[in-house]
């Protein structure tokens, strides 16, 4: 609940630091024709793998340095660590005995914990967007609020889905370690699947199975919002919350 406010502030600070470093490096790359030539020499598959297209433009730079991997995964790791702690942490610390001595259904507990996770993820994503949007121009990086919102939304929903998964696995097993392990592994797997599918043609048909693909694989920074893809993320998350409540409902707690 209100318990993680302090750690949230830490995460916001960390993410801000990351953004500022990335932004401060941009002016050296922007419009640098030498750099552009160097990149042109990269083989095509590598360019796709590392998202190197238009590296020297604002959107391209952000896509490569911030949103190709680091920022979404940082938010996701935050959400996974927090999500795994919300229920399984209460069990491991044994505070759940006192909490559930109150007249609260287990379902309500799952939903309230998830709302806390949602709030935290929204705050973290919003601070990411504000940092890039407000500080970007100072480093001559202009991408506009629309594309920025689209890509931050994709990142935030990706993180929320896997934070929710961590919450659900924690609720179903009572173990934070298992919750973190499962959620992190699957998050990385969907990233790899989506990214590799760009260069490995036979993987392409299974690409839609990757949540990363629905969140960021459609390049929201240049192509904007994709309601269809985003609603898949949202629906998946809602299904996981329901499963979390079901799994939690049937268990012996803190045994």
């Amino acid at each position: 609940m209100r318990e993680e406010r302090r750690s949230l502030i830490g995460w916001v600070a960390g993410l801000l630091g990351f953004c500022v470093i990335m932004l401060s490096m941009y002016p050296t790359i922007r419009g640098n024709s030498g750099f552009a030539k160097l990149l042109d020499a990269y083989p095509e598959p590598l360019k796709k793998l590392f998202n190197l297209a238009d590296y020297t433009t604002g959107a391209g730079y952000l896509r490569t340095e911030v949103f190709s991997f680091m920022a979404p995964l940082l938010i996701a790791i935050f959400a996974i660590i927090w999500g795994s702690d919300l229920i399984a942490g209460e069990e491991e610390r044994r505070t759940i005995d006192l909490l559930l001595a109150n007249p609260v259904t287990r379902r309500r507990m799952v939903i309230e914990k998830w709302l806390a996770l949602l709030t935290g993820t929204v705050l973290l994503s919003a601070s990411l967007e504000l940092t890039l949007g407000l500080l970007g121009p100072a480093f001559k990086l202009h991408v506009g609020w629309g594309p920025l919102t689209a890509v931050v939304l994709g990142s935030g929903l990706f993180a929320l889905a896997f934070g929710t998964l961590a919450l659900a696995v924690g609720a179903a097993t009572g173990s934070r370690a298992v919750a973190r392990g499962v959620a992190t592994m699957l998050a990385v797997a969907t990233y790899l699947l989506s990214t590799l599918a760009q260069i490995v043609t036979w993987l392409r048909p299974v690409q839609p199975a990757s949540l990363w693909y629905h969140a960021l694989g459609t390049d929201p920074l240049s192509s904007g919002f994709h309601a269809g893809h985003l609603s898949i993320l949202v629906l998946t998350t809602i299904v996981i919350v329901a499963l979390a409540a079901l799994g939690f409902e049937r268990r012996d707690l803190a045994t």
Partner: protein
Amino acid sequence: MTGDTLDRSEGATIFLDHVTKHYRSGGGVDDLTLSVGPGEVFGFLGPNGAGKTTVIRLILDLIRPDSGSIRVFGRDSRRDSVEIRRRLGYVPGELALYDRFTAREVLTHFAHLRGGLEWSKIATPAEQMQLDLDRPLRTMSKGNRQKVGLVAAFMGDPELLLLDEPTSGLDPLVQQQVHGEVRRAAAEGRTVFLSSHVLAEVGEVADRVGLIRNGRIIAVERVTELQHRALHQVDATFSSPEDESTFRSLPGVSTCTLTDHVLHLEVSGSLRPIVERLAATELTDLSIREPTLEELFLSFYEQPNA
């Protein structure tokens, strides 16, 4: 088990009906049947690992029985769990609190979850226990944390109190305060279910006692009967010779040996005749000791229907 416990499911505050719960790693409780009436202080007495905490967590629906059923206030412990928990207070055996917060924050949060109690209902018991509400729980001593747990359980005057070894690790002064709270609750007609592994504690506050060991209930008795059964061990040393038969014939004496000025007695019931007789001797040493839990349990195996 005495007959009066079996047929009291009607109107019972807590009723366990052939409840079995086994943990995957072994241990648990076996085929427990138990009934606690309204307004009663029920002592649940047993050694470590007997199954006391298991029973209390089953009542709370934190864990579920493999078989059998539990009714609290006449309601099903699983289906009506929220309604049941609205009417009870609980002190866990291993009390864990939200360490980063102050007692005030935690108690306010729980009061909110209980549908918004007035702060005065929390503040009064906290004052009575001389609790500093504004220190982080992490910096509190074990005794003070236990008091926070007790205030949380007692706030809003619930009809049923489930206290799992509420005084373990507390100094005698705090123990007395806890016993005082239990008696006050009982005097107001509320029901208390208190687990303990200390005979003296149960003897002090309980009306009835259930003895549990290895997941099975060995006996359920009134405290007065139990105290009658509890044989005091009396050891005395005299400076002048005494006649063994004058001790053997005293009321309540079951074992009597006198060798070399050293007397050993086992006494049930009132100690008064013994003490009066001893007062007439030249005593150099005297010890009177309550039976250990082990000795008490043994007494049930040796004479099951005594």
